[in-house]
């Protein structure tokens, strides 16, 4: 395999991790209607791409399905470490940047917005600077956090396992070209900004 990595999660419902390229954290995510959702609804499920080794500076993005919960993940490692963009949490009313360190969850930034189906959420980390994006436009301000120095890009969801939540994932190294295949589905206007890391 090579980076950037992509996945559209085509497969049998309930498959977790989605395929052999992924490793679960906690309960992981599972395939649902050719997308992914939490492997156990109501619990935070993470999976990270383990078929390639990422640089420390990396990004991930994915497309929200149906306004459900979840989002892209960076610097995931072990079983309990990651930074993640948590779309539509708090009963679907807000979006957060979280860090997960040794199993503890900490709010890093609150964005005061939600994601609709088709919206693309992205998170990138360079050094100790974390940026989050909605449809290519940065949301909030740059966050500084130094807890996690390395890891892999991934995806997470809290959504009930009966509903698809996130799809069309890509993870790669900051500064590297995005995969062309996943840049086709979003509206054309988003493409140039999706390349920003």
């Amino acid at each position, binding site marked *: 395999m090579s980076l950037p990595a992509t996945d559209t999660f085509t497969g049998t419902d309930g498959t977790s991790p989605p395929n052999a390229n992924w490793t679960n954290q906690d309960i992981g995510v599972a395939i649902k209607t050719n997308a992914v959702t939490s492997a156990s609804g109501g619990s935070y499920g993470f999976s990270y791409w383990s078929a390639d080794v990422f640089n420390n500076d990396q990004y991930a993005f994915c497309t929200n399905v149906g306004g459900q919960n979840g989002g892209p993940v960076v610097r995931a490692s072990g079983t309990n470490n990651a930074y993640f963009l948590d779309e539509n949490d708090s009963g679907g009313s807000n979006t957060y940047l*979280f860090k997960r360190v040794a*199993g*503890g969850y*900490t709010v890093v930034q609150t964005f005061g917005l939600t994601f609709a189906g088709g919206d693309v959420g992205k998170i990138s980390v360079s050094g*100790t600077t974390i940026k989050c994006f909605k449809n290519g436009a940065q949301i909030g301000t740059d966050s*500084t956090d*130094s*807890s996690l120095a390395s890891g892999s890009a991934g995806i997470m969801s809290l959504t009930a396992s009966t509903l698809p939540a996130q799809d069309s994932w890509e993870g790669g190294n900051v500064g590297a070209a995005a995969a062309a295949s996943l840049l086709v589905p979003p509206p054309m206007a988003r493409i140039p900004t999706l390349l920003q890391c």
Partner: protein
Amino acid sequence: MRAVRTFVFAAVSVLLFAASAAAQTEMRYYVVPRSGTGQFPTPYEPKYFNQFADPSALPFVGTMDYGLENVFLVAADLTPAQHTAVTANADVLAVPSPIDANVSALALPTVQAKLEAGNIPADWVTTAMTYQQVLSRVLRLVTLMQRFNGLFGRLFAGGATLDTRINQLPVNARNALVSAAQSLGADTSTIQGTTLLRTALVIVADQLFPSGLPFGGVTF
């Protein structure tokens, strides 16, 4: 014509009022305790700004935890009323505005005591320093503690205090502290076994982020 003038006057008045209201907020900085258990539905958040657990809590622009210690730094764009409300709490250290003002002799003992209560070394704070200079060093201490947390866990556990010597720390904690400092680009060669933790942390912090550290939309 008169109706048009009335409409324009009303519209301008609304815009001026809105601009005035918006101008009433000001970016402020606070040191507050941590709230939450670290698990859902109460993740770690800054106390009084814990919007995940309590949507009615104050909004913030940026926040940084001091590792697993009971301290958060907060950057928040607040109205005077919100600022007054949060500073009414005895466990809040509010940084005066403007931040380029010097620490006053009256405030110095409070600043030092509240930082040290959270295991942030503060014996170096003097009235010759501006609050911005104080914040700048504290932010770098925070990033060091975050990396230590990611590598090891909590530093001030098992009886360790700011006045503990490096060689009094458990070996694995000592090694993790060196790894945390070096992974952030710091040179630890001047730190000896007899160096106090408070001194060692500042030696490392002063080497970090030489080109600036962004926090709440401002670079320190």
